[in-house]
Structures are given as structure tokens and as C-alpha cells.
């Protein structure tokens, strides 16, 4: 069967692949959105922190024998802790200033991280094997789906919606949201807002690292793996509406699908389509698809 001269099997497989990529976008843009929502910081180091997650997993495996499953927990904790330090030592001084300064600071941090890892590990990167339990794949009829890719969708959606639930439905989340709206008021109610902010940044960074561990078996683990991704993820957050949690998740998935479609129709443009969409969305809906203006 064919639609517009494209076989449905190919279309189906491309959409599925798009969804897989979309789940990476979702988890990364979620982290960015949370950080922006509470800290008002555009975390340009997100791509570098994603890369660090992958590297920590690789180092853990090769130097300390820590397996993939443990790395899924350990790497986000370690990188998240680095995030906490960054927030405590640097970002804290910038909250009252224009967005620009946060963006520039984190951009500088990204350069530093990438430079250090490149010096230590070289540019070709390292290879991380798919864990035993998730290797192999299933034939879906229209395509061969590696089990690991299926796991990526499950893991990332679980984390995304778990995070959404925590923020929208729990008490901690309520503090967070209130802190975003009016931090002085929340502070007055006896809640330690600075601590809350530190925790939030650490959590956002940990999400990036988690995505990094998820990505390690698929992509070559190399120091620049996050540097081009960051721009796309950025666009996803903006399209979804800066700071909107659900918006960033849904937009991430949606853009993955659109990118997948573009790869069928006009593959050369698949890296630029996200920017075309961003311009259109911003012109039509200034605060993004899910943002409140």
C-alpha cells in the first residue's frame, strides 16, 4: 500500500523512529523547561550535561564495572550533583539579571565541559554496548525494532510523565509551582525557596544526564554529542512554550514525528524543519503552543 508514493511500511517505520527521537527531545526539553520555569535560566549547558551523563555511564562501566542499570541511577546523581554545585556557586548570583547572563554563563560552562572531555577522551569517542537484557530486536512486520529502542520510549515516557505528575499533583510540586509564581510569598510561608531552586536545577540537569545514559548505547559517546542537539532542544522548548511542563513533553514527541516525516519526504531538510516550525509557531502563538501568555 502506498500513500503519496511512499509505502506505508516505510512511513510506519519512519514514524516510529521519529517517536524514538521524540522521546529524547521530550526528556531533554523537559529538563530545560523545568529549569527555565523556576530559575528563569536558559540552561545552555544542557547538551554538555547530556554528554556528561553518557560519559559517566561509560566510565562507570569500563573503570568500575558498574552496569547499565546502575548507571541509569548513578550517572544522573553524579551529574545532577555537579549541577547543584553550579547552581550554588554561580547561577545563584544571576537570578535578578536579564536572561542573557544565565544563557552566557551556561554557554561558557558548556565550552569548558566539552573542552575537558575532549582533552581527556579524544574526539572519536567511545562505544557503549547495548545491555544484554535489551539486545536484539523484534520484527514488527513493517520494520525491525531493536528492543533497546522500545525501551528508550518506555523509559523516557515514564520519567517524563512521572516528573509531570510530581510537579502537577504532589505537594512538593505545588511548592515548586508556587515558587515560580511568587517566591517571596512562598518563602514567607516558611518554605526554603533557595533549597527548592537548587534541587530543581539539579533535577533538570539529572534529566539531561539520564537522557545521556539512554543515548549511550545508540550513539557514539563523544564530547560533542550534545553540542548540536542543544539548539534543537531549545527550539522544542520554545515551541512548546517556555516553562510549560506538559508542553515540552508533547512538543518533543510531536517534533520527533514531524522530523521523521521530513526524513521521508525531504531528508536534507530534516535538521531545519524544527526551526521553520518554530518561526511559524512564534508568529501565530507568541507564547508557544502550550504556554500561557
Amino acid at each position, binding site marked *: 500500500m502506498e500513500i503519496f508514493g511512499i*509505502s506505508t*511500511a*516505510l512511513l510506519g*517505520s*519512519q514514524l516510529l*523512529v*521519529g517517536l*524514538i*527521537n521524540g522521546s529524547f527531545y521530550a526528556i531533554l526539553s523537559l529538563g530545560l523547561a523545568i529549569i527555565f520555569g523556576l530559575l528563569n535560566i536558559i540552561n545552555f549547558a544542557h547538551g554538555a550535561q547530556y554528554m556528561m551523563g553518557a560519559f559517566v555511564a561509560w566510565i562507570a562501566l569500563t573503570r568500575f564495572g558498574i552496569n547499565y542499570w546502575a548507571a541509569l541511577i548513578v550517572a544522573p546523581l553524579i551529574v545532577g550533583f555537579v549541577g547543584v554545585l553550579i547552581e550554588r556557586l554561580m547561577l545563584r548570583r544571576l537570578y535578578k539579571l536579564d536572561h542573557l547572563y544565565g544563557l552566557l554563563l551556561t554557554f561558557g560552562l558548556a565550552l569548558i565541559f566539552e*573542552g575537558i572531555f*575532549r582533552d581527556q577522551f*579524544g*574526539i*572519536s*569517542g*567511545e*562505544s557503549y*554496548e*547495548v545491555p544484554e537484557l535489551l539486545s536484539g*530486536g523484534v520484527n514488527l512486520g513493517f*520494520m*525491525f525494532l*531493536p528492543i*533497546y*529502542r522500545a525501551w528508550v520510549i518506555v523509559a523516557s515516557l515514564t520519567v517524563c510523565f512521572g516528573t509531570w505528575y510530581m510537579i502537577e499533583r504532589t505537594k512538593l510540586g505545588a511548592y515548586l509551582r508556587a515558587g515560580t509564581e511568587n517566591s517571596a510569598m512562598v518563602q514567607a510561608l516558611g518554605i526554603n525557596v533557595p533549597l527548592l531552586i537548587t534541587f530543581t536545577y539539579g533535577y533538570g540537569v539529572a534529566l539531561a544526564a539520564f537522557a545521556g545514559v539512554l543515548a549511550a*548505547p*545508540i*550513539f*557514539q559517546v*563523544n564530547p*560533542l*554529542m550534545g553540542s*548540536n*542537539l542543544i539548539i534543537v532542544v531549545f527550539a522544542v522548548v520554545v515551541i512548546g512554550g517556555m516553562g510549560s511542563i506538559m508542553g515540552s513533553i508533547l512538543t518533543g514527541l510531536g517534533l520527533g514525528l514531524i522530523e*521523521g516525516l521530513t*526524513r*521521508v519526504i525531504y*531528508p*536534507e*531538510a*530534516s*535538521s*531545519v524543519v524544527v526551526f521553520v516550525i518554530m518561526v511559524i509557531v512564534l508568529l501565530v502563538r507568541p507564547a508557544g503552543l502550550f504556554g500561557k501568555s
Partner: protein
Amino acid sequence: MLSRKYAKTACAAALAALSLGAQAQVSGGSVKIGVLTDLSGTYSDLAGSGAVLATRMAIDDFIANEKPNFKIEVVTADHQNKADIASNKAREWIERENVDTVTELVTTSTALAVMKVAKEKDRLVIMNGPASTPITNEQCNDVSVHYTYDTYAVANGTAKAVTTQGGKSWFFLTADYAFGHALEKDSSTVVLANGGKVVGSVRHPFPGSDFSSFLLKAQASGAQVIGLANAGADTTNAIKQAAEFGITPKQSLAGLLMFITDIHALGLKSTQGMYLTEGFYWDRTDETRAWSKRFFDKQKKMPTMVQAGQYSSIYHYLRAVKAAGTDDTSKVMAMMKKTPINDFFAKNGQIRDDGRMVHDMYLMQVKKPADSKYPWDYYTIKATIPAAEAFQPLALSRCPLIKK
């Protein structure tokens, strides 16, 4: 400081003029070699600090073996893969520091930019890292040497070998920029010439990270061979994901431009059985092993063909300076072209008038993990592609210097 340098140069020139004939007449009293390479970006593993090390090794060996009566200096810089930085640096080196030859120059855009500057200033350029064939075709000039390899040589070798061994139908996964297009074009020509057919191709944005959609297209095409007309991280990611999607080993992959560092980074598990063409393999002969061990002791990595070529080309250059008794560009170039190259890197290598150094290339197959006995034991040499076949024949040259 700068004026002092000029004074020094003038003095040296005067002295050299006085002692005419007694010594090699070397401008500024020394031969100065500039290594302009990528020290921090995408190509820093295949060229980078390893190329700088190879240069220094060549100079040390040359001084020890040939006892030249001139001084040799090296300057290095990171061109960050930007043509304007490369052009600026090369110009400054030539005008201010009297650099005699600018070398390495990975990435074609930087190489082309420096070739223009060198031609204008009448200095030598020796290129090892860049891949594109225009360097010795449309853009060729008489001060440049393209030494180690080019896209024609690597694509040609691999495509021909794979096609003649039964890989008749091809699908290309091509990086969407000039270099990728050139690789695809060169390889398709060879595939067709050897009785194969090209069933399709897809162009992916550069740089890419997820190649699964493109690989699925390649899979759906049913081609026996998927030609990877890309380089660096794009190639390694595509190979990794092809294994993940069960595309290999049903369909086989042909890396049209790969380096041993790529194989090292990916590991043998996902690369086993692949064919690729290189100009150098450390474990080929006793000579290559001996040199590579020395390199490894310092760099902790085995040399790539670019780094080995860098050593060989620098040594050849210095020998030509000594033989010509001058560092004058055209005289040294004439000497370099006249003298065949015989060392661990090349046997009877010859620099043609279009600037192309022709030498044997090697078709390699990546070993199975079980067959790899020691670190960096990665290749089986399947065939030696003789110099005459390895590179684009002069008859097809588009270089204006070649009279037909």
C-alpha cells in the same frame, strides 16, 4: 621584536650570500615548517597533536640521519577547521615568520584557502589530512602537494573491491555537503564501471546523530551494500546503528572514508567484516611496526595514515631541501617531484605534476573480535592497490597544469 626578526633575516641573508655555495642556502638561516591542523575539533584524533608529533619525529630523525647544515624549526597552530583562521595564520606565518612550508591542513576548506595564500606568496603546501579531489584538479597549483590520500583513492579502492567480490547493488548514505557528494559520485562511477548498480541514495543533514530513518530506507532498498559517503562521527554513528537495527550483517556496509581511529572508537564488534581503504596500516611490515611503536610510545595511540603520511612528507621535503641546496619553493618542489619516495610509508611514491603523491593503497577488512590478538590488531590486508590504479589517472585530470 618583529623588526629584530627582520634584521636577523636580513643578516642571515647577507651571510648566506657571502658564503655562497658552501652551505644550503636557506632563507632566514633555517627551514621553518608550519603545522596547521585541527587541534581541538572533529578531526583532532586523526590529525591533530599526532600530526604535530609526527612532524617533530621526522625532523629529529632527519637531523640524526642526514646531518643537515641548516636549522629546522617548527611552528604549530590550531585552525579550528575554519578557513579564515587558516588563511590568516598561513599568511602571517609566511609574511612575518618566514615559514617555508605549511603542512597538514585537515578539512578541505582550510586546505584550499591556504593553497591560495601559498601560491600568491610562493611557498610550499604539503597536505595530508584533507580529502577532496578538487585539490589536485580544478584548484590545483604548482606549490602544493597532496600526499596521503584523497576521496578518489579511498572510495575507488573500497567500491571496486566490494563490487568485484559480489556486492553488486549499492545504496548510498551521503552526508549532505560537497565532500559527501564527491564521495558518492566517485564511488558510484566505480560501482557502475565494475558491473554493479546503484539502487538509490539518501542525503542526511550534516552533522547528523540519528541515522536510523536513513538506514531504514537503505534497508528497504534491498541493496546488498550500503555505502557510507560521510566521515567521522557520522560514519561511526551510522555503523553502530546499522548493527542495532539488524541491517548488518544481512546487508554489508562499506566505509568510504574511515580511519583506524574510527575502528578503534567503535570496537570490532560492530565493524567486523567491513571493507575500507587506507594508505597505511601500522601492522603491515616490520618497518611500519617499528615506526608506529615509536609513535605509540609518545602518543598512546597507533598512528593514522594522515599522521604517518605527515612524517613521510616532512622527511621527504627536508631531504629535497638538502639535495637542492636551497629552500626556494620551485627548486625544492622540482626536487620533491624528481625524487621517488621510499620509506616505511610508501615504496616508489611519486609526486605528479598535479601535486598528487601516488603510492600504493591497501584494501583492508576489519577483523572479527576473536581474530584480534593484541591491542590495535584490527585489519587483515586483503589487497594492495598499486599506485597506478589507486589514484585518479592523469588522463582524467581537470587540473590546468596537466597538458593533454
